[in-house]
């Protein structure tokens, strides 16, 4: 058993080292954001909140957060609406092209969206849609729709159809059944998809960078790049503070999604008893 214990300790040792490697880059950003004259290396800060107040005091930064919320929030809402609607017939009905449709959806979830950015830009140029937040939102929506539909369909498959049938017998329409029975029962699934979509879009740099131009319309993901891309003298402290504030929504939403996921689906019991 001595050998066994040694082995375990070695394993713990490796994990600690790997953990430290993963921690280090993040640790820097945390320290730098509280440091007025932060540098690129790790050093203990003379603690201050000045960086945060400077970032939050800038109306341009606040607007970029606002644009980000509008863009990602709008996208998440549209993805949820469209995919609930699409998932319903896919989950509940026999249809002729269902199988090929689902396969193409799955196929699309895996395609790298980077590959279509050039033609999408050309399309936006042609229809004079470039610099339109709404059109960008629509493109983002469709880029995450395949994943949304695929997930929503499997979530909906796990909602027992019996409940809906009971509602139909009581005189509910198909639409009524979807709205009043199915949708409320799959709230955890809907929340998960909304959160995933929002975070994915919140962190997306490439799409708004290509499709939007004027500084007032750029979301935080692009503003932050211009922050460290174009300023000759980089103010690391402020940039770190901006990064930290910008990362927060993703972290918080991830934690929420974990809660929803672990709750799982306890609706199976609803038909019994």
């Amino acid at each position: 058993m001595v050998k066994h214990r040694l082995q375990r300790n070695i394993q713990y040792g490796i994990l600690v080292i790997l953990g430290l490697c993963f921690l280090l880059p993040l640790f820097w950003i945390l320290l730098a954001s509280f440091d007025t004259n932060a540098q690129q290396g790790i050093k203990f800060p003379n603690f201050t909140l000045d960086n945060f107040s400077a970032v939050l005091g800038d109306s341009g930064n606040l607007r970029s957060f606002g644009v980000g919320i509008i863009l990602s929030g709008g996208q998440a809402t549209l993805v949820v609406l469209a995919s609930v609607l699409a998932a319903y017939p896919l989950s509940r009905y026999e249809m002729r092209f269902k199988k090929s449709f689902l396969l193409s959806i799955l196929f699309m979830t895996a395609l790298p969206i980077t590959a279509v950015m050039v033609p999408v830009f050309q399309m936006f140029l042609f229809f004079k849609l470039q610099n339109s937040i709404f059109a960008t939102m629509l493109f983002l929506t469709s880029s995450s729709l395949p994943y949304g539909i695929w997930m929503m369909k499997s979530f909906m498959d796990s909602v027992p159809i019996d409940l809906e049938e009971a509602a139909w017998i009581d005189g509910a329409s198909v639409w009524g059944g979807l709205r009043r029975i199915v949708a409320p029962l799959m709230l955890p699934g809907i929340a998960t998809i909304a959160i995933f979509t929002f975070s994915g879009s919140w962190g997306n740099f490439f799409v708004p960078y290509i499709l939007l131009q004027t500084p007032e319309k750029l979301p935080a993901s692009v503003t932050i790049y211009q922050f460290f891309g174009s300023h000759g003298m980089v103010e690391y402290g402020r940039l770190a503070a901006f990064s930290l504030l910008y990362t927060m929504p993703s972290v918080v939403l991830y934690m929420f999604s974990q809660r929803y996921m672990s709750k799982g689906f306890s609706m199976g019991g609803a038909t019994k008893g």
Partner: protein
Amino acid sequence: MKRKSRGAFLFLTPSVLLLLIFFIVPIILTICFAFTNMALTGSAARNLQFIGFQNFTNMFQDPDFRISVWRTLVFLIFSAVIGQVVLGFILALLMKEKNVTFRRIIGIIVIAGWVTPEIVVAFCMVAFFSDNGSLNQIIGWFGISPVSWLFSFPMVSVIIANIWHGTAFSMMVYQSALDEIPKDIEEAATIDGASNFKILSYITIPMVKGSIVTNMMLVTLQTLGVFTLIYTMTGGGPGTATQTLPVFMYNQAFVNYQFGYGTAISLVLLVIGIVASLFYMKSMKVKV
């Protein structure tokens, strides 16, 4: 009870329309534009012409293109296959049956890198690898003189950055796969005197093979499309040292305004993506 559709297929309309406009049409456009001389400036901007396979002939003769394909391969193999897939597996394996609190702390640290948006990852990593950055500080403790990582080893830097950002996903996939292996199988093998290595190669890995293949395809596809991380860390440079296909495509289309050529590169990316995606679907063995 499954009923025949009574107009409910109309619910599909918004999704189908959106996918058609923003997904199918761009793909068709890629195929059409790739055979034109489309450009934003110069004479080609005024007279758009069908030029056949000209873009592709140019492309395969372009040393920049060939080296981009090579760099994309290096990036894929080291950051996706070796980096994320193997490191993720090692992490999941080591974390198995460890102290719950310890497991959770390591998990949170690794996942933090995954939850962090790509652009922030890029910024963290630029600082980490910079001349006065943390990495040089650390090697300084061992008496090694500082290295300009982003200039001397740019590819290594972006590969490490991508591993740092992406490994958590593989780790989580493997954790749930490993958790599903019945405990008694491995215990029985231990009692029969099998070494850890034998258990790993004859029992554990074969039992999670499905997840390994699926995860590998997904990670490869995801890494194939990586643009933000490389573009914001190095801009494809120094020179063209980190110019992978997506960055090359961006430079041709949006810096040199050679849209036709840029689209031809998109098409190559798209075809690679399509092939990988088909493999991925095959590996999933989906039932619909």
